[in-house]
């Protein structure tokens, strides 16, 4: 696969690893947060950590839209589809297994008779509404800035077509607000408590919003940001660039992913998004609690496509498991293995907290890809 395989090359990785080892100052420690689950996945999947010097540590951020989706939002969708037999609830495959209240999930709601369907694309949800005029098709939309424009498009199309039986539960969230929340957390603010020397910035989010929005963090919080592609060589190169900035005392926004990300981003998509959506005053993120101005809702002009208005859906917050350390993990204060219930009560089959929900969450990634490092190899 062109533009993919070249960025996964093991031999190049070895030379990059050498370069990083050479450039990293052995006298200090580096801690970088990759905001995105995509980076978390690449790091775990390709074993990038093994190629980094011991004094370079990666912290897994909250950048997985499935992980940060609060229980109450899934509950809302489950109630809707179980109470109203006319509803077809469609959503991306990722959302189906997210645990909700009463040991349910959308998949389990389906098993109880709810008409829940997986779609590959927002367009498929729209097509379903056209195919079943006698049903109410509700698209449960999640995602960061990357996934928002397709949702905006189908909402607009539904309005143009006068498609009365299509609506959306909008759970789209915003990357910069989440980064801000992390930077504003007491541990990060009080210098020294939590070391956070810079960010690997989102790849595909940035294709839409461009590199400019990150300038604020670099300038205001003095944190270097390197936007990087989701291939493992991209990540390594970004780490190398972050190390250089730290070494040189710079805090700039750099772009490793120039092949797809420009400064201004995708203006067409941005315009579409602001036509259809507006900011929510506040939105709950699993693991981060309420984050101000961190999510989108459907504008009044598209009220007919807003399932929350149409079906009068109410959000009821559900507290996370008390033992869950997700908040601290997302802020870089703790590691998955610091959680008492990691790998026992909390496993990918029965996740207790947001970080275990999708394979891109810090706990799930460690469980699936890394837990073998926590136990000594025992002879049979």
């Amino acid at each position, binding site marked *: 696969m*062109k533009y993919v395989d070249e*960025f996964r090359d093991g031999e190049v990785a070895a030379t990059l690893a050498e370069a990083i080892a050479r450039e990293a100052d052995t006298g200090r420690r580096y801690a970088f947060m990759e905001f995105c*689950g995509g980076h978390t996945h690449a790091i775990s999947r390709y074993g990038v950590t093994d190629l980094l010097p011991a004094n370079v540590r990666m912290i897994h951020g909250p950048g997985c839209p*499935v992980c940060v989706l609060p229980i109450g939002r899934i509950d809302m969708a489950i109630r809707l589809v179980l109470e109203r037999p006319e509803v077809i609830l469609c959503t991306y495959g990722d959302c189906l297994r997210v645990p909700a209240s009463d040991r349910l999930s959308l998949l389990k709601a389906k098993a109880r008779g709810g008409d829940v369907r997986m779609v590959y694309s*927002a*367009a498929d949800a729209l097509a379903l509404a056209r195919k079943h005029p006698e049903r109410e098709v509700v698209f449960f939309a999640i995602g960061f800035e990357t996934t928002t424009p397709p949702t905006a498009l189908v909402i607009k199309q539904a309005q143009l077509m006068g498609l009365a039986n299509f609506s959306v539960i909008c759970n789209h969230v915003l990357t910069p607000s989440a980064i801000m929340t992390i930077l504003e957390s007491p541990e990060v603010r009080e210098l020294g408590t939590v070391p956070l020397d810079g960010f690997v910035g989102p790849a595909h989010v940035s294709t839409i919003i461009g590199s400019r929005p990150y300038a604020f963090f670099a300038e205001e919080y003095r944190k270097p940001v390197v936007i990087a592609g989701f291939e493992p*060589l991209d990540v390594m190169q970004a780490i190398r660039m972050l190390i250089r900035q730290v070494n040189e005392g710079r805090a700039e926004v750099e772009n490793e992913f120039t092949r797809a*990300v420009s400064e201004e981003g995708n203006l067409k998509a941005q315009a579409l998004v602001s036509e259809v959506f507006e900011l929510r005053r506040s939105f709950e993120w699993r693991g981060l609690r309420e984050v101000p101005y961190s999510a989108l809702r459907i504008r009044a002009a598209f009220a007919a496509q807003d399932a929350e208005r149409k079906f009068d859906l109410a959000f009821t917050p559900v507290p996370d498991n008390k033992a869950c350390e997700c908040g601290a993990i997302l802020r870089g204060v703790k590691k998955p293995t610091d959680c008492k219930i990691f790998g026992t009560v909390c496993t990918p089959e029965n996740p207790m907290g947001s970080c275990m929900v999708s394979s891109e969450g810090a706990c799930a990634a460690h469980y699936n890809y890394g837990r073998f490092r926590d136990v000594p190899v025992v002879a049979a």
Partner: protein
Amino acid sequence: MCLAIPARVVELMDEDMARVDLGGVRKEISLALVDEVALGDYVIVHVGYALSKLDPDEAEKTLALFAESGLDLQAIAEGSA
């Protein structure tokens, strides 16, 4: 998050649709979110939509940057040999 992949446009179709190729696999996607895509262009595809074009020159430059570290390494190795 945001699984997306570069794929080559092999057919432009009606209504902002296109067929892309990824390692021999072909899929219909929408070009509604990007402007001026031409046959043969690579686009970044996410949930059935192209999010942006991929710039081949920039890709080459990035790969060159990776290689650079290799060259450095080699130079150093030679230097220290």
